[in-house]
């Protein structure tokens, strides 16, 4: 129940698009409550809203310009105060694309519960507000709304015990993180005489003392980092994302955690205008650890959605590498390079949104088709669900950073940013070395990502089915397939069209970090550009690959149809159990990185009675999540024990209680004497 608009400056086509999106979302939220039959229409409406958000984002991104609006009042504060600019637009594009596709997958599916069905569009709306909020109050309001709704969607109304605890952990962590944000914002507000407006803060930021700047940085990193799921604030992510409904997981991994990145850029770069280079170093370190550990843990999973969740941590790490490089470079006035690194971070944010939601929706399709998330029981699905398989494969290639897909383009830019940081002399040697190490970390990460997605794709879609459920799977409905195709196409489009995309994002980055006149040392372009600067001619390379591959394909075709025979398995009829599965595929890496992963395994062998011949064998191997298992759990247990200890104070003895009062009185008298 929001009162009539007080001020709407959401003008022009963009304005209409925004209003269309908002209106559709509200309708979509009401529809399921109205009647169960309308629920699927709600999904359709959400799709439409997603598309208009996408349109809105593109218009703002290309057309530039800003759009503001304001509604309602509480204690003289406006609950909804919007101001969309280029930075918002970057994430709006991600939101639009992802939400359109995600909503499309649930069109025509029976709704699990009407409450959730109506919470879902509101969740989209909350993200739309977060990206537009122009002051601390409306931002935190939308932010908390987003957290609450996503948590509701994760938990649902009839959750199992583990789901509840996952949702609880998520909500609690994000709420504590928000407290940090609140303090950070309050500090900024005091700087600008109590004004809550981001713009006002930008003006007042220089007048704040460096100590305040650092405090804000730390708090903002805690607050936004938790939402983004960077190490060591990630504990909630791999637990909450897998248990959510797949289209929600897609949105959470694709967009919601990006709002953390958005917040970091908005506050650190836009409002504070960068900072000392130790900020950048801190972000770089967090990013490197997130990337490497994220992908390593992902490799160790055999639950498909959990695997994808860990990859979100990895990609957030990659984005942070770009951001960290940008801040370090900006701190030493290498603005051209800094802008490029920032562009890298923004571009990877969009790309990750696309391919991660694609992968989650693909996993959702697999789940819908087989009811399985356990890779070790999947296999051979490519035959039954070719579209899903192809789309998932493209997503896998993209997230593994392979040309000519979009993931490679943004990782290439991140590499260039780090290279710039390592190479520019004004940056102190140690920081340069840090950037060098980050390059190594990123290389390791992308190689491990290749390994992980060979495993995920291969074990799921190739070979022989490992369970009956996988054996008689059927591809998902047309809307879902359409959504997957859409996103896969986006992966290719953003890969080949990286040139224009990067150009647009560079304009945005330039508004945040004005790049002086210095020459750019690396460019992603469509057409080749000779010269000393490193280039990635995305379109040209892509187009060159086509004939190169096509020729070979043609040659293969000429050989005529192959004679079909069984796979050679040393003379026995091939069986699914012969294949490498998720666990065995990852074994070499599990052993290579044993010091880090601390794997533990148990093998049960039952023998034929009285013989040395095994009858049945069971093998289980789990790795240790160092932070969770060795730090967080003990800490939590400790704090609870502490609470138990404190509760002894309330011993039930009246006399003791009196003693407290008297003691307090005496202390007070002594204090006030």
């Amino acid at each position, binding site marked *: 129940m929001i009162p009539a608009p007080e001020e709407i400056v959401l003008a022009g086509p963009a304005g209409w698009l925004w209003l269309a999106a908002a209106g559709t979302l509200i309708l979509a939220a009401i529809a399921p409550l109205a009647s169960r039959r309308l629920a699927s229409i709600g999904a359709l409406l959400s799709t439409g809203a997603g598309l208009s958000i996408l349109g809105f984002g593109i218009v703002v991104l290309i057309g530039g310009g800003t759009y503001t609006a304001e509604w309602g*009042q509480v204690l003289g504060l406006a609950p909804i105060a919007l101001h969309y600019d280029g930075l918002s637009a970057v994430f709006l594009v991600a939101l639009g694309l992802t939400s359109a596709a995600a909503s499309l997958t649930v069109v025509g599916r029976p709704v699990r519960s009407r409450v959730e069905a109506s919470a879902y569009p509101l969740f989209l709306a909350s993200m739309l507000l977060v990206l537009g909020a122009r002051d601390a109050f409306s931002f935190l309001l939308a932010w908390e709304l987003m957290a609450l709704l996503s948590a509701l969607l994760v938990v649902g109304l009839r959750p199992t015990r583990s789901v509840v605890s996952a949702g609880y952990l998520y909500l609690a962590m994000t709420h504590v993180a928000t407290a940090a944000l609140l303090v950070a914002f309050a500090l900024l507000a005091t700087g600008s005489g109590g004004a809550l407006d981001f713009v006002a803060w930008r003006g007042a930021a220089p007048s704040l003392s460096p100590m305040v700047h650092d405090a804000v940085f730390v708090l903002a990193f805690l607050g936004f980092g938790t939402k983004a799921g960077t190490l060591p604030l990630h504990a909630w992510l791999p637990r909450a994302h897998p248990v959510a409904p797949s289209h929600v997981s897609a949105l959470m991994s694709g967009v919601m955690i990006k709002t953390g990145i958005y917040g970091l850029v908005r506050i650190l770069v836009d409002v504070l205008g960068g900072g000392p280079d130790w900020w950048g170093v801190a972000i770089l370190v967090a990013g490197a650890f997130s990337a490497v550990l994220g992908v390593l843990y992902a490799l160790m999973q055999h639950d498909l959605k959990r695997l994808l969740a860990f990859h979100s941590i990895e990609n957030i790490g990659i984005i942070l590498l770009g951001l960290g490089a940008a801040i370090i470079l900006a701190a030493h006035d290498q603005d051209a390079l800094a802008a490029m690194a920032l562009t890298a971070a923004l571009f990877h944010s969009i790309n990750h949104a696309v391919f991660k939601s694609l992968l989650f929706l693909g996993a959702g399709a697999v789940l819908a088709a087989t009811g399985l998330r356990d890779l070790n029981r999947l296999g051979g699905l490519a035959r039954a669900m070719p579209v899903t398989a192809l789309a998932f494969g493209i997503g896998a290639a993209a997230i593994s950073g392979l040309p000519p897909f979009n993931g490679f383009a943004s990782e290439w830019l991140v590499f260039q940013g780090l290279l710039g940081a390592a190479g520019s002399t004004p940056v102190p040697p140690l920081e340069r070395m840090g950037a060098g190490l980050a390059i190594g970390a990123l290389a390791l990460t992308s190689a491990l990502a290749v390994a992980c997605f060979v495993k995920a794709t291969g074990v799921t879609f190739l070979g022989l089915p490992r369970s009956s459920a996988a054996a008689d799977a059927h591809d998902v409905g047309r809307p879902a397939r359409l959504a997957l195709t859409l996103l896969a196409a986006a992966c290719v489009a953003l890969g080949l069209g990286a040139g224009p995309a990067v150009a647009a994002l560079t304009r945005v980055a330039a508004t945040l970090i004005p790049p002086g006149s210095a020459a750019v040392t690396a460019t992603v372009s469509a057409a080749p550009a000779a010269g000393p600067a490193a280039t990635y001619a995305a379109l040209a390379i892509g187009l060159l690959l086509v004939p190169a591959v096509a020729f070979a394909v043609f040659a293969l075709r000429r050989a005529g149809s192959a004679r079909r025979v069984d796979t050679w398995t040393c003379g026995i009829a091939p069986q699914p159990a012969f294949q490498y599965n998720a666990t065995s595929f990852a074994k070499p890496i599990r052993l290579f990185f044993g010091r880090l992963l601390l794997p533990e395994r148990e093998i049960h062998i039952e023998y034929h009675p009285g013989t040395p011949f095994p009858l049945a064998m069971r093998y289980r191997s789990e790795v240790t999540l160092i932070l969770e298992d060795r730090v967080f759990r003990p800490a939590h247990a400790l704090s609870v024990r502490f609470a138990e200890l404190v509760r002894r104070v309330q011993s039930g003895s*009246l006399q003791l209680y009196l003693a407290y009062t008297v003691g307090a009185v005496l202390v*007070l008298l002594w204090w006030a004497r």
Partner: protein
Amino acid sequence: MIELTAAVLVLVPLVGGGLAWVLPADGSRRVAAVAMTVTAVVGLGLSGVCFGLGAIRAFGGLLVLDALGAYVLALTVVVAALAMAASPRYLRHELESGALRALDEARYYALLLWFLAGLVAIPLLDNLGLLWVAIEATTVVSALLVGITRTPQAIEAAWKYLILGTIGLGFALLGTLLAYASSVPALGETSEALAWTRLVAVAPMLDPNMLRLAFLFALVGYGTKMGLVPFHTWLPDAHSQAPSPISALLSGVTLNAALYALVRFHLVAIGGLGEGYSSTLLIGFGLLTIAVALPFMVAQGDLKRLLAYSSVEHMGILALAIGFGGPLALLGGTLHMGLHSLAKSSLFLSAGELVQQYGTPRLARLRGALGAAPIAGGAFGTGIVLLAGLPPSGIFVTEFAIVLGGIQRGHVLAAAVAALLLSLAFAALAFHGARLIFGQPQSTTPQGGRGRWLAIRLAVPLAVVALLGLWTPDPIAAALDAVRAILGGTHG
């Protein structure tokens, strides 16, 4: 006219209580209903008038109702009405289960009305001495209500409440004495010398040392009643053992009343001693209170005790807000007071439903409330979320304002610590809440109460809390601002 209304406001519940005591059960129920309605209408009307036309004075200045008083009065009658509305259903269950005897019903209503009489008197009295008398009276009466179910725990709780409350209020009396002593030189030995309107007026002329001690003891005394650590020890016992409607009243109203009294002293103190002294004390005790309440919420085994400790926590927040001072924090504090009353009373009522249905307050045994009792469980879950200050909850706004205001007034560390503690308190509350709402109920648990009326009773206050988080209508905004101005004291 005003005299008459004021008299009606206090006398109706007083006399009604007398009637209820002598009448048979259903008769007393009717009397209670009528008296409650009248009191509510008159009370709201009176505060409405006050907000509309400014402060009201009657009986030669013995009664004064300014915006702050009007606000407290309005909250009092509203929450009391909620509690009263919940009472018949509650009593029916208790009588059926044999926890109460037939005779107790009439007594319950009588005591409830007398309790109400004391509560509505508090914000009217322009005299610190009579204020004390009224508060002590409510303590004594409510002590009887707390122990009305003669279970050993109830008796224990009531006994502790009585003793600790009386001794605590003894300190408040000492404070009042000192205030009197400090003002006698200025105002002479008349009851004038205890009229806070006058005291605030002549505050600069008061004997500072006396005033210092006066506020100190008032803090101890009313702090006891309001549940500031370390004087809170009685609170979880009493609030958890009392009949749920009474718990709602205790948490939703009495705490506010005590706070109100303390605020009057605070205003005199900042008038006489300036900012530093009383504000520092309030901030200190506020933080201590929140910090100590936290572990008790984390490792809590009893549903109603959990809510009680959350009340303690929120009183800490209010003390903090008033200590911070400054328009933003005070505005936040003002709204917070009201929203906490509404949310907490609704929570106690739904918790009461659940406790009666499951037959135990032990959190370990309360599971799957959403399935077993859709209405009460849903209301409880929503209430927890709103109370914890997740949007769209007014409490989100108020906590935002309080922390922001605190930092703007330079209390960066205090505000930051408070923000952290609050979020942790939410974690604790949500932990127990989640396990209560979801999960599998034992097959033995009977189906929970249904009925539109129950739903409305529980939902309306929550709806208000939620709505105020997005939009405060202008009249309410104006009223809050008026209260804020008074809380602001000399530097409103």
